């Protein structure tokens, strides 16, 4: 039993170190990034328990979709923030995950669009 516990602790330690070094390479999750800019849990999730699920309307209170599309208008090969599927109103969370690593939602259909999503 004791041996098992030590093994667990080791695993956790290894994972933590690994995660830590990965984060250092600017792969900070967006929850931490928001937190570092003073955006608290309740800013998005509200104060009530259980916490509210976050809709896109919360994102657009701070992030104007039209301005964002303008900012990335020269993005190649395409401006993801003004696309053929949803115009400027693609759900932010399709790509930008808050509590997990973000993902490139384009690439499964457009195999050569290797965007790195913050």
């Amino acid at each position, binding site marked *: 039993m004791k041996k098992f516990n030590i093994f667990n602790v080791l695993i956790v330690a290894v994972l933590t170190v690994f995660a830590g070094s990965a984060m250092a390479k600017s792969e900070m999750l967006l929850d931490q990034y928001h937190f570092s800019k003073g955006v608290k849990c309740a800013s998005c999730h509200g104060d009530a328990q259980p916490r509210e699920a976050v*809709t896109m309307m919360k994102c657009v209170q701070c992030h104007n979709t039209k301005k964002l599309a303008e900012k990335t208008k020269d993005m190649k090969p395409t401006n993801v923030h003004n696309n053929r599927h949803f115009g400027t109103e693609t759900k932010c969370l399709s790509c930008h995950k808050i509590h997990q690593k973000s993902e490139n939602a384009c690439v499964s259909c457009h195999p050569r669009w290797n965007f790195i999503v913050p």
Partner: protein
Amino acid sequence: MSKDHSQKKQEVDQYTANVLQNGISRRTFLSRMAVGTGGLAVAGLGVGTASADPLVVGQQYAEIGGATLGFMPKPKEISDAEIASTQTFDVVVVGAGASGVPAALSARESGASVACLQKQATAISQGNTGSGIDLKNSDKSAIEALVNRLMADNQHRSHPGLLREWAYNSGEAVTWVIDRIKKGGGQVVDQGTGPQHGIHGIADKGDRLNFVTSFCGPKPYTTGDGMRALAKTAEKAGVKFFYNMPAKQLIQEKSGKVVGVIAQDRDGKYHKYMAKKGVILSAGDYQNNKAMCDFFIPDLKNFERKQQDRMGDGFAMAYWAGGVIEPVGHTKMLHDFDAGPASMCDMPFLAVNRKGERFVNETVEMSLMNNYLKDEVNQGHYSQVFDADYMTTAKDWPGHLYSPEEIKVYMPEEPGEKPGVFPSITNTYKADTLEELAKKLECDPKTFVASVKRYNELCAKGKDEDFGKTASRMVPVLKPPFYGIHRRMRISTLCSGLLVNTHHQALDADGKEIPGLFIVGNMAAGFYGGVDYPLTVFGLSLGRCYTFGYLAGKYVASL
């Protein structure tokens, strides 16, 4: 609508009778449960088998019940206090796609006040071609031969009445859509009968069969852009569009009459849209709803989805209003017109799967190829392979060849502008050796080269001992450069759904019209039924969407 109060059971056609008997509705769910219990009782009375039997029976029914409830939860009650606004129209259309936008505009042109609710921020549609029959230049016997052919394409599981509804009204409807898209500044032309390569031999010699083939394009322009132009025309005509406003549930009186829709905006607030004449559901398919797909078309598990957000919202709404969903075995549509030329998709060149193995008699059309590639390795991928002589060896094959110069627009490795295609999903390659081509097609080179060698042997023999392809289509792959088109069969749409009559009015489990509820587009039943959408009439899908939207809008406005 039904004013027939007689006790006599209305006579229904065979298609409708079958869906009533075998489809999924609230009533069949309950009665199935009852049948399950009945089965228990019978088994208990000693049919003569082991005592474990009743348990198995019970489990089976619970699974069906569980699946039904899982993907179509009963809508929660929304109290009047939660309603932020209420507006009243004659007609409320749910969904601004290739059926919804035409429905909204045609209802408006027929004098109705119209709201169109859309889940997304814009009107949305896919594809380029939508077709109808040019009635004036077609003979009735030829039209009926086409209806007969489409019934066969649908494995005789569709409603001939609905096919005729398309056949005899689509020329008018598609012509109308072309005109109204143009009025909205859209890019659309009538290509006539020219692109209809698949109809040869259907009509008797001397019988005329001609088409109105609308084309919104070329790519990257699509019918999505066309529908956004049509929505502009509709808006000008007075249709009120509400974007980012997904419908959540239907408002139904105790009598069963559907009188409106509750939708929810992006802030989470509810809004009521009352409909004096009727609600037209045109909310599309359910390809992104895994539980629904697993239940209705388990074959889809390993295929990629082309669309997003297609959760079958309309199915749940109609089901809870008493609608009947066609039984399991829904029709699917999996295509790739973008990797290489669409007009070469049905040419029986050597084809290899993702591993590089020959896997099929290549005369199987692309629209059916997915059935050979359902596993988790292939996931719908295959490659058409041919050599430098293809312009001569394949010159009489079905479709239209692109020359080595023309085909460059489909080659991601070729530099320069790529007009008329989606450059991000082209997937055609050229190489001087088979090994090199295999790598570009993402196949194992050894397996690929062995497959080509075996195929060439069979070609030399003039006998396809592996798959039985006819000798005239056995053309070897010998002379470099070698070509490959790596196609990915992904889900364009699913096109089975809720039972309607020829007025596009939803029917309940008794076969009676649900007052106030109409269903069009790919979520309506009865137009297909085969394992795959047929490519006999190029643009049938959009043509049917336009036509039934146009007709339903007119009809509901006239009530």
